[in-house]
Each structure stands twice: as C-alpha cells, then as structure tokens.
C-alpha cells in the first residue's frame, strides 16, 4: 500500500493505493499525523484506488479522524470502492464517515 500527500489549497488530499489492512494501517496513521503536524487540518482521504479494507484499516481511519478533530480540523473520505463501502455500512461507520463521491465535494460546502 502507498500513500501520497497532495496540497489542494483549502484541504490536503491523501491518496491511498492498494489494500488498507493490518499491515498498512499504521502507515496511514503516520501519514495523516505528518500532514496534520505540518499544519493541514482538513484532510480528504481518496480511496479510489483502495481495493480492500479490514477492521484495522477502518480503525486507522477513525484514529486519523480523531487526530484531525483534535487539531481542530476534520477528515473526510471520498471515492470509496464497493468492498470498503460494505465494511462502512456493516459497522455503521458511514454515519460518522460519510463517503463523498469526489474529492472536490468533500469540503465544497464548508
């Protein structure tokens, strides 16, 4: 799994590519920690290229949300694939982390 950070002006995009699982989850936390530490408080995690997520991956996303909120910002997710959507629905996490259709939409109304 790979993570790329892109500064989009009003927010920061984290592009996650591959499988978000037990092995890659810590890297996601570290990546978001780093972005928030560098001053980006609004994060969009782009999951278009994330084909799979397990409970650790989901835990990492919630952990990242907490980090962003603690910094006074927010974390949103966009472009989820089918399996990720199913995990979100199954755990009701879609009520906390509602996926946006595109990265641009995520903070469009703020």
């Amino acid at each position, binding site marked *: 799994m790979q993570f790329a950070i892109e500064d989009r002006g009003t927010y920061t995009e984290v592009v996650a590519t591959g*499988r978000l*699982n*037990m*092995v*890659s989850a*810590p890297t996601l936390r570290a990546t978001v920690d780093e972005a928030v530490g560098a001053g980006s408080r609004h994060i969009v995690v782009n999951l278009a290229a994330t084909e*799979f997520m*397990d*409970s*650790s991956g*989901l*835990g990492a996303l*919630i*952990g990242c*949300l*907490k980090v962003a*909120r*603690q910094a006074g910002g927010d974390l949103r997710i966009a472009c989820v694939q089918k*399996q990720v959507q199913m*995990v979100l629905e*199954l*755990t*009701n*996490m879609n*009520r*906390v982390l509602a996926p946006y259709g595109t990265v641009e939409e995520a903070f469009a109304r703020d």
Partner: protein
Amino acid sequence: MSVFWVRLLVVLTVILGVNYIAWRWLESLNWDAWWIAVPLVAAETYSLIDVALFGLTVWRLKRRTPPEPPVGATVDVFITTYNEPIDMVLKTAEAAKRITYPHETWILDDGSRPELQEGAEKLGVGYITRGPEWANRPRHAKAGNLNNALMMTSGEFMLILDTDQVPDPRILDRTLGYFNNRRVSLVQTPQYFVNVPEDDPLGSQAPLFYGPIQQGKDGWNAAFFCGSNAILRREALMQLGLAGYVEEVERAVTAALKSARAAVRRARKSAEAANPLVTRLLDDVDRAVDAARAEQAAGAPLAEVTYRVRRSVDNAVQQMVAADMSAMEADLAEIAAMDLGSEPGVAVPDNLDIAVQQLSDRAWSPLGALESVQAVLDAISVDRDDEAQPVMPLATISVTEDMATSMRMHAMGWQSVYHHEILAYGLAPEDLKTMLTQRLRWAQGTIQVLLRENPLAKKGMSLVQRLMYFATMWSYLSGFAAVVYFAAPIIYLTLGILPVTSISFDFFIRFLPFMIVNQLLFAVVGRGVSTWRGQQYSLALFPTWIKACTTAARNVWFGRPLGFAVTPKARQDGGPSWSLIRPQLIVMVLLAVAAIVGTIRLATGLNEPLGTFVNVVWVVFDLIVLSVLIKAVKYEGYVTEERNADAVRD
C-alpha cells in the same frame, strides 16, 4: 494346446534366453566399441525380460465359463462421451437400452451438449453432466466424468462403455454371474473393432492382449480394467474412493501443518512483522499449529485436529477485530466529547457481534494481509477444497484411469475376471494420425502409473500380481530397444564396427535356438491369431513410445503438461501424411543405404562375409517390421464392403 506344452516352451525360452544373454554379457562384448556394444546387450536383456514376463503371464492361462447371473441386481450402464458425433452416442445408447438384463442407461456427456440431452430424453435414457462444483477445479477427464456419475446414480454394478462401443444385448447376462463371488470387483470383456479390414493395417485389434495376455493375467488374479466394455462393483469403487480420500487428507494435512510452520517463520522475517498486531497474530497461529501437530501425532481424528486449528485461528482473528472495534469506539467517544452537538455523535454498529463476525470472515479477515499464512491455513482441512468431489473412486493419477484403478482394487484384495467373449462392437481409428494419438495416450498413461505408483512397490498385491502390472509397463519401454536394434546393423555395415567380438559358431548356437523357441511360444500361445502386427508396431512406433516415456516423466517429476488430446473417433481427412512417420522413413533410408554400403565394403574386402550376411538379414528384418507403416500411411479407412461375418470371431 495343452498347458504342459506352453509351460515347456516357456521354460525352454527362459533357459535358452538366459544362456544367450549370459554369454553376451560375459564372453562376447566388444569393449572397443562399448558405445554400441553396451546399448545392444542392454536392449537384448530388455527383450529377454519382456519375453520372460510374457512366459509368466501365459503360465496359468485361464478360460472361464460364466456362472448364471444373479436375480435382481441393480445395474447402471454408463456411456461416456466428450465430443463424439451425437448420432454415434445415441446409437450406442439405443443398443444399451436393448441390453436384456434389467438396467438403467445413462449418457455421461462431458461436452454438455443440449442436442444430446434432447436426444437422450427422446430415447428415454438418463443424461448426466458435470455440476457447478466442477467449475475452476481439475476435471480429470474421463475418470472425472465417471466419478461425477457415480455420485448421481446408485446401481450395485456399472457397465462402462466408450461412445463407440455398441453392446451386445447379452452383455450383462454373460458377465454378472461372476459377481456372485463377493470378492469380484471387475469383469473385463474384449475390445473388438468392426471397422478393421482383415489385414489390420493400423494394428487396431489386439488379439494377443484381449486373449492370452488377459487370460494369463486372469490366471494370476490380475486381469486389468481397460476403460470400456467392463463391469465394476460400486462397493469396490467406493471403498477405493474412501481409502484414497483418507490417504489424501492425511497427506495433505501433514504437509499443510508442516508448511504452516514454515510460512509463519517466513512471515516473522518479513517487514510486516514489525507491526505488533502481526506478531501477536503469528504467535496465535503458531500455537494453534503446534497444538495440532501434537494432536495429530497422538492419533487424534483429523477432522477434529483441523477443526480445532481453524477455530483457534478464527478466535485469534475475532479477538483482533473486536479489539479494533473497541479502539474505534473509544476514538469515537473521544471525538464526541470534543465537539458536542456539532456532529451526529457516536455511531455504534447496531449489532456489534455480527459486524465482528463478518469482519473476521475469510474474505475480510485481517489475516488476509498475510496471504501465504492464510493459504496454508486453508489447506489444513479435510474437505479437499481443491477437488470437485472429496471422494474420487476412479483413480485420477493418470490419463488412463483404468489401469491405476484396477491396480488399487487388487491391492485392496479385490478379485478381477477376464471374460473372453466379444460382447461389444467398437470403432477403431481409421487413420494413422488418430491411431498415433491414441497409442501415445495409452503409453503416456501407463508410464504415468509406473512412475506414480510403481506396482513392484505396491503393498497388498502378490508378487506375481505386481509382475503382471509391471510386465505391461515394461513392454512400453520398447522404443529405446528399437532404436538400438535399428542402429546396430547400420553401424556395422557402414563402419565395420561390430558390437560383438566375433560373429561365429558360438553366436549362432546360442542365439538361434532362443529365437526359434521364442517365436514358437508366440505361435503356440497365439493359437493361430496373428500376433505379427503387434510385434511390428512395438518396434515400428519407437518415436511414439519414446515420446510417451519422456513426456510422462516430465509430467510426473516436473509437473509439465502432457499435451493430452482426446482420441477423435471420426476419421481425420487429407491424403497420406508422410510427415507423421518421418523418423521411421529416415531409419528406413539409412537401413537401405547401409545394406548397399555394406555390400560394397564386402566387395572391397573391408567387411567380412559372415558379419555382412547376418547384418543384411537383420536390415531386411528391420525393413519388414517398418514396412507396416507404409501400409498404415496409405490406408484410406475402412470400406464397408469388406465387412464379413468371419471378421467377428471369438
């Protein structure tokens, strides 16, 4: 011919043969030309062993009269088909329906052809194809087709027919009686072909095999299953399938537990192992696998051992997922505490248990991150997930499932019967190409069985039973000997190099009596049927036999594909295809040239007269042997007018 005379000839052949070969090894080898001398004496030794095994085969020739068939036995008649013409299948099915003994007829269509299904329904016979469980799993060709049908039918006995084998209505009446003996699991009848002219250019009929050889094997309780025209006892097949299943599961679980350990060890060395969660999971897997190995060693049932491994790993995974979930809840609670009212608040799953369970499921489990570990854990099971059916009654270790199946039945103590009466009328290939494909397939299958389950090492069979199976396998090695038999006279005639120290009185006095008695034995045992075609083809098809050995060895030892093809039943069109026998044509040209060169060398005094004479005779013999192929290439298929009543003989 009485048993006494056959046995006398066998004893004489072996004594004279040993006398000749011993002299060849000890006294006659020309070590200066060891590169041809040793191969030649090895080839001759091969042939002597072949003859000796033949002698053992016919030692107890058994001729049987069938007992009365039992009343009320249940029988399924299976017609196996893959891509043969629909008309041919239905014609056989119609004949099968007319079999007088009460039975059910089934068409086993591996081609899943709707037109054939329709035809079967119209005819009022059963129609079976593979179910969805076979998708993406090994199909095992004809053995798989029959195994599939075995699970969907219930007759005590089954008659197996190839698509082109039209049964005689009496076939069951004449054979079922043998099953009154509770230990008999197989009755094989001859395979006879109606579309073969008197001179049999393609060597389709096998009068020696479906005659003295099978009768001889029968005498030793070692008659083979030959794939068609045979009746099998379901109970024996099922027992075979179950024994095979237990063996396979035992082997697979032992191997899987071993490789699970190795996989965990490798995973610990990988970069992922830096993650404490991964380490903890690996510890859990390790503990479960160790416990299973201890239980297996203590003799616990495999179903329980494998179930417990799976359950402990599942538990570990579930605990991990539950830990993730509670960490999430804690995070969410913190988030909610941070900004009261601004967000929808904490969303706990409606049913946490179900969520945990689903996230622990194989497809979504965190263990999926350690693919190699998950794969070996999957293999620790008793359900043989890699196969469509856990229980495979017909052996699947070879492309010719028949020989392997009957060998396993013999090893389990079952008896077999060869009933020497033509009760089905088949169609032989009518062109050389198809015939070569078929022979290659048989030879490959036989060699596969030899390499996978060497009969000499097979527990449960008597020594002679083992030798009977081995004899047939041994005869398929003739290609290598043939090359030497073609090369030796060419080498002498063109280069003047003799593999023996001298061709003299010593040679003739030992060789000729052996050769004469040997041929006499064949003539007596063959009782007038021509065995000459068979002798010709066992040498003339040397490229096919060698290819069979090399491809089967590569397949068994290195897992390479055989390049397997189903034998087409319809004639392949086109003119004579000389390219099919290119190696043999080259050998024939070399032999002819060698004879001419040898004569010139004789005239110029370079070769000696006796050596030249013997080798020219040898060349002529080789050419006569190979000449059968010229006839075979030019053969244009069977012409119906040639059919006559005499062709069908017992």
